[in-house]
């Protein structure tokens, strides 16, 4: 992990307040594994407000066209005011202080394709940002990733094309059915699990707490493993401040507090206490 002041290469307006920020940092890009995140200083000066850096999933690694070497990271920023508004306002050439890559990545064991047939990727809103690198890794291991992507309205379903380009099966949902199926993303997931759980499945989820909790409950009911990528307010992201903990259960079923920045952001959904949201 490195703490570097790096350049914004490009910023793409995806509509509805969503922006794809392309950062130039070959070293950090080269270290990145699927599910890891960056801590971005949203203000220009290190002591300017907002003080604390903000965690963002690494959506993609972009590469040098000629050599194919990693050149930097893409992150998805939804402008919800505060620090995110500052990031959304960055221009190409601006510098930003970036710590990372950080955290425990998704688990994709070598040869996973021999044991499971499908990997269900469940994304809600900007939670999609944690899933693209994972989808690629799963394809490398000869599994079949299937994307379940839900939002309130069609505008929430950003960055669908990079998944579609992978040629994987996709299921979209919106609340009113104006794009894809009507209802929650767990609806098509449930149908899929009922049909294929016996063929060997894994669930990987990133999105709002309620969505991940529902995905976890389905995974438990169908007896399939489930990993979730969690969100928490973070202080240092180095494991020191103990501010980003979630309530979880240890092997004996006793309460413990795990740091989202160290033991996460990706954890087995079965360790999480779903009754205690961390935000």
């Amino acid at each position, binding site marked *: *992990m490195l*703490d570097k002041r790096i350049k914004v290469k490009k910023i793409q307006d995806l509509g509805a307040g969503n922006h794809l920020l392309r950062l130039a940092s070959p070293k950090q890009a080269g270290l990145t594994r699927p599910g890891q995140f960056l801590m971005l*200083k949203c203000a220009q*000066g*290190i*002591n300017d*407000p*907002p*003080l*604390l*850096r903000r965690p963002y999933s690494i959506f993609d690694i972009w590469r040098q066209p000629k050599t194919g070497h990693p050149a930097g990271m893409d992150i998805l920023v939804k402008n919800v005011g505060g620090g995110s508004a500052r990031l959304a306002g960055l221009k190409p050439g601006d510098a930003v202080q970036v*710590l990372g890559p950080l955290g425990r990545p998704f688990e994709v064991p070598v040869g996973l394709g021999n044991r499971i047939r499908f990997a269900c990727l469940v994304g809600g809103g900007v939670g999609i940002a944690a899933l693209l690198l994972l989808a690629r890794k799963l394809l490398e291991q000869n599994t079949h990733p299937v994307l379940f992507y839900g939002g309130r309205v069609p505008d929430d379903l950003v960055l669908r094309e990079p998944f579609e380009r992978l040629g994987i099966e996709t299921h979209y949902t919106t609340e009113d059915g104006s794009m894809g199926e009507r209802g929650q993303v767990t609806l098509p997931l449930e149908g899929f699990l009922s049909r294929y759980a016996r063929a060997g499945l894994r669930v990987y989820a990133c999105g709002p707490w309620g969505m991940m909790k529902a995905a976890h409950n389905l995974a438990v009911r169908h007896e399939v493993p489930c990993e979730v990528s969690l969100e*928490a*307010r*973070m*202080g*240092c992201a*180095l*494991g*020191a*401040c*103990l*501010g*980003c*903990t*979630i*309530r979880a259960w240890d092997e004996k079923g006793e*309460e*413990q*507090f795990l740091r989202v920045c160290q033991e996460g952001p990706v954890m087995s959904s079965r360790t999480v206490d779903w009754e*205690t*949201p*961390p*935000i």
Partner: protein
Amino acid sequence: MAAKKPPQGGRNQIKSVKTSVEISGVQFKNPVLTASGTFGYGLEFAHLVDLSSLGGIVVKGISMKPIKGNPPPRIYETASGMLNAIGWQNIGAVEFITRKLPALRKYDTRVVVNIVGFDLEEYLEVTRFLNDCPGISALELNISCPNVKKGGFHFNKNPRDAFEVTDKTRKASPRLPLWVKLSPNVTDIREFARACADAGADALSVVNTFVGMAIDTEKRRSRLRFGTGGLSGPAIKPIALRMVWEAAREVKIPVIGVGGIATTSDALEFLIAGARAVQVGTASFYNPAASQDIAEGLERYCRSHSIADVNELVGSLKT
């Protein structure tokens, strides 16, 4: 952030600056330490900060037995600061001594252990245990944490209690110097500074966090599960500075300034107000190298201002 480099080769430039400070017989290579609870066990920052560039590291509060801490959410950012209610989560003294301290001792810096407990006997137990452990330069008695329901904070209710816990802990640590970390959540910090000094404290860390609150107006719930939290960061600096100034004039033992220090200039203010050393806290969260930057910045300041010994700054406030 590093202070601006002074012009080089000026007429008044001096070659070497004495940066070391002494606190109750222990030499610190410079007056910049990290504050307890903001730098973990030090090792978390080792790949981003040259730990050997620091005067010392005050590690996260240690209790005899491990403590799980408070349920989340535990932190919330506020204007120029943050609230926390971690609740003393720590790995316990035995784990610290066997798993963390040996790695930390490889660095050329001082290790100060902040100690916590839910009652007096727990304080004494962890003090006796650590007093026998090599590799520790001082103990910092935490009687001022606002984020636990019993113990700790209780001893800060009146100067008599502060005297008693300091006196008993002092006697339980015959080998190690004892610092006492004071709470700012009192009417007159001078009374507490005096009581702890009278009880035999070797130094005072002034101050811990200020009790604060933030509310989610949609949910009408506190932003922190614990309810209240300790406010830290630049927001508290002017108040902490005033308290350091008051405490330093009240007692003869060294005062260590803590509270919102983020830049070299902040650290200088505390030294001038009377602090023998400073601790960098919340700044390490958003600028991991803040403490190293400040240690280097102080030396640059002394050089450019023809100050041969950093101790000349201590308590140099003009009236």
